[in-house]
């Protein structure tokens, strides 16, 4: 699955995107956050305040309980400030 990061989530992780192979037990967006945080201090720092992180699955906003089955691209980013 492809993960993409934006704004300070991108800066803290130090990547704009990456391909990952998820363990079988990671089945929701919330699981993904927990798994990412175990991957190193950059991820820990980027996702330290889980309440403020927003998600999109295949370009559509998603909540933490969103299943990952069939997803091609998951995005993690801070609250949006466009307009």
């Amino acid at each position, binding site marked *: 699955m492809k993960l993409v990061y*934006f704004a300070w989530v991108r800066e803290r992780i130090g990547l704009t995107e990456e391909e990952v192979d998820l363990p079988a037990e990671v089945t929701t967006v919330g699981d993904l956050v927990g798994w990412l945080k175990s991957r190193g201090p950059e991820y820990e720092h980027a996702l330290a305040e889980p309440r403020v992180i927003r998600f999109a699955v295949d370009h*559509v*906003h998603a909540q933490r309980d969103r299943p990952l089955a069939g997803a091609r691209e998951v995005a993690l*980013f801070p*609250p949006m400030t466009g*307009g």
Partner: protein
Amino acid sequence: MIPIRVVVQAGPFDVAAEIARLKAAGGAGAIVTFTGVCRDEGGRLQALELEHYPGMAEEEIGRIASEAAGRFELAGLTVIHRYGRFSPGDDIVLVAAASLHRQAAFEAAGFLMDYMKTKAPFWKKERLADASENWVGPRDGDDAALDRWRK
């Protein structure tokens, strides 16, 4: 279906041309435009950088625009959101809504802006005159602004 035009681009937009385009589609008695401009933040701001999520930005704005077209009696709707680097005074976003009577165009433009602020995948970073930089946080008022549109 009314004409809906959504554009995400780096370059500038031309408000007069967008109004003319909406008028050419016919049925317009009222055209409301909203132009969002890069503020100078009391002289503190040197530049603003707008990052976006290519692909999702167009799609999400398209979804918000379709929702607006379903809620309000519109003759046409245009949204242009720029990304990249901005100086104070530069245009950032344009919403233009045309309708037969004025209320629908006003409401649609307000609805679009309220939703774009919190749902369109764009992020602003300020570069300040003292060489520091920081990501802009969400305004408290932006979530409250959405509440008035909840059905």
